[in-house]
């Protein structure tokens, strides 16, 4: 297979590319891109390298870029002494619940609004869209009240992941993504199923679910990433052994030696990075799914 050099989307035409002037311009563009890549990757690389320095070396003047020696026992020590394993497990558990809630709740609602269209659903959808971008800092206090003294039942949901899970289930943006995805499924699938007498729920599990594996995958990845960095409600609600990594990375600052802290940060970045490396195509494709989303 030949490597594709030409790119069919650019404004520089094939013919023009042979002229010196355009070649230089292309070279400059390429150099700028390489510089950008360096700016993007250097801080992360620096973090990983610095994690291996000991405290003395970390604060040494003049500082060094590469660590003097790579000591893997420090990795193990930092991991076990701060019970990172337990925290990662907690966070994964929280993320799994987030994913389940977001897929079930927003997926079903997206399906209903897109396909079943019961009376009043249009109005409801408009309401949901209007509230999608509402700022959340006015609801901080009422939400805290809701979570610590649940309406009607009076439950206190602190030290559980239910608040985060429920919030994941009320994600209007993913609801919109699901709806526009279901809009794009051909209608004939549904019609033939209806003739065969399938119920709404059956249609969802037999037809919609298998077809929507790609969008479920993309939303799961995004939801995992956002759960991995979730710190706000955990910080306010969880204060026992159920703490997740987003809040712990905040509280650990200043409680640890600097080089060990940087190593913990490196630990935290590894899972999303690995996911990104594996699913790069899906993630970058997923970004443009819903049109515009910052």
């Amino acid at each position, binding site marked *: 297979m030949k490597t594709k050099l*030409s790119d069919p*989307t*650019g*404004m520089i035409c094939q013919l023009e590319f042979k002229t010196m002037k355009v070649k230089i311009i*292309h070279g400059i*563009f*390429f150099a*700028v*891109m390489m510089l*950008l*890549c360096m700016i*993007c990757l250097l801080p*992360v690389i620096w*973090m990983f390298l610095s994690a291996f320095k000991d405290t003395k070396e970390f*604060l*040494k*003047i003049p*500082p060094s*870029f590469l660590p003097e020696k790579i000591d893997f026992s420090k990795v193990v020590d930092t991991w076990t002494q701060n019970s990172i394993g337990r925290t990662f497990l907690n966070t994964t558990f929280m993320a799994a619940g987030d994913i389940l809630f977001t897929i079930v*709740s927003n997926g*079903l*609602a997206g399906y209903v609004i897109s396909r*079943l269209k*019961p009376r009043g*659903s249009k109005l409801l959808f408009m309401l949901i*869209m209007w*509230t999608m971008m*509402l*700022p*959340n*800092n*006015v*609801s*901080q*206090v*009422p939400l805290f*009240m*809701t979570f610590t*003294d649940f309406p009607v039942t009076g439950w206190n949901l602190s030290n559980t992941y239910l608040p985060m899970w429920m*919030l994941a*289930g*009320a994600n209007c943006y993913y609801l919109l993504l699901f709806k526009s995805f279901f809009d794009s499924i051909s209608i004939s699938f549904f019609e033939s199923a209806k003739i065969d007498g399938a*119920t709404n729920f059956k249609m*969802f599990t037999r037809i919609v679910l298998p077809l929507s594996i790609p969008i479920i995958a993309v939303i799961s990845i995004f939801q995992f*990433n956002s759960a*991995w*960095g979730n*710190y706000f409600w955990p910080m306010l609600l969880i204060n026992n052994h159920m703490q997740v990594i987003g809040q712990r*990375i*905040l509280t650990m600052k200043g409680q640890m030696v600097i080089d060990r802290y*940087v190593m913990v*940060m490196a630990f935290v970045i590894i899972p*999303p*990075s690995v*996911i*990104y490396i594996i699913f*790069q195509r899906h993630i970058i494709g997923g970004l443009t799914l819903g049109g*515009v*989303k*910052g």
Partner: protein
Amino acid sequence: MLKKHRLGKFKNDFSAYILMFPAIFLIFLLIWRPVYQGFILSFFKLQGYEPVEFVGLQNYKDIISETLFKTTVLNTFKYVGLSLLVGFIPPIFIAVMLNEVRWCKGFIKFAIYFPAISPVIVTSLLWTFIYDPSAGGLLNMILLKMGLPAQQWLNDANNAILYIIISMTWSGFGSATILYLSSIKGIGTDMYEAAYIDGAGLWARVWHITIPQVWRIVLLMLVNNIIGVFQVFAQPLAMTGGGPNNATVSLSLLAYRYAFVYLKNEKALAIGMITFVMLVVLTLFYFFLEKRVTYED
């Protein structure tokens, strides 16, 4: 016959609403109800979370007369203004350039989006080390190597917001670039080729073909960006804690502090409502734009 049909329709609607129930319930409970509650409670004097006395606009008057609130509003506008200056335009041109580059395109895309995948809370903390005012900070290390004096970075009250914005740009420009890139890709080579044959230079092609194509998305992103930065919270919380001397406190951070640090919920609610009203105006504008964009497409 007709009756039976109606009954069937009703049954169908009913089961549809059952499928939708989880989302509606959660959206009602966690999005709509809290806004309403917050609005009502902001007119009350609170004892903990219990309203004790209706005070009308007193909470608002109290908060507006505070100097810290004034500083915070100014800071928030500074965040928004600087983010537009520093972070808004570059992704457009980066996308234009990236679209032309013919080598290592996959790697470049990978690297550009890399900062965006790590949690914001971690990247903010990482940048506090990059901005470390001692000689061991990454930036000071580079400055000293080049023979330049070390900087105070986040301890410098005048420019701390600028430095926070730079770190936010670092983690956010990748997704903006990817969005612009996918819009630019939609242009196709035909139009460029035609322009080339007509003798249009590269700059003319960018100005007359590329920019008009992405223009509407640029507008949407502009409003989106303003709304996002207006609510900046994680970065000042993790990087400066609002310091030095409250120079980086944002409206969201102040509301958070009133609610969960100073435990003055009525003031937090008043700040929240004020931000809310400012943002609703922007949101309306966003929907106005988005409607036009989607219809014109």
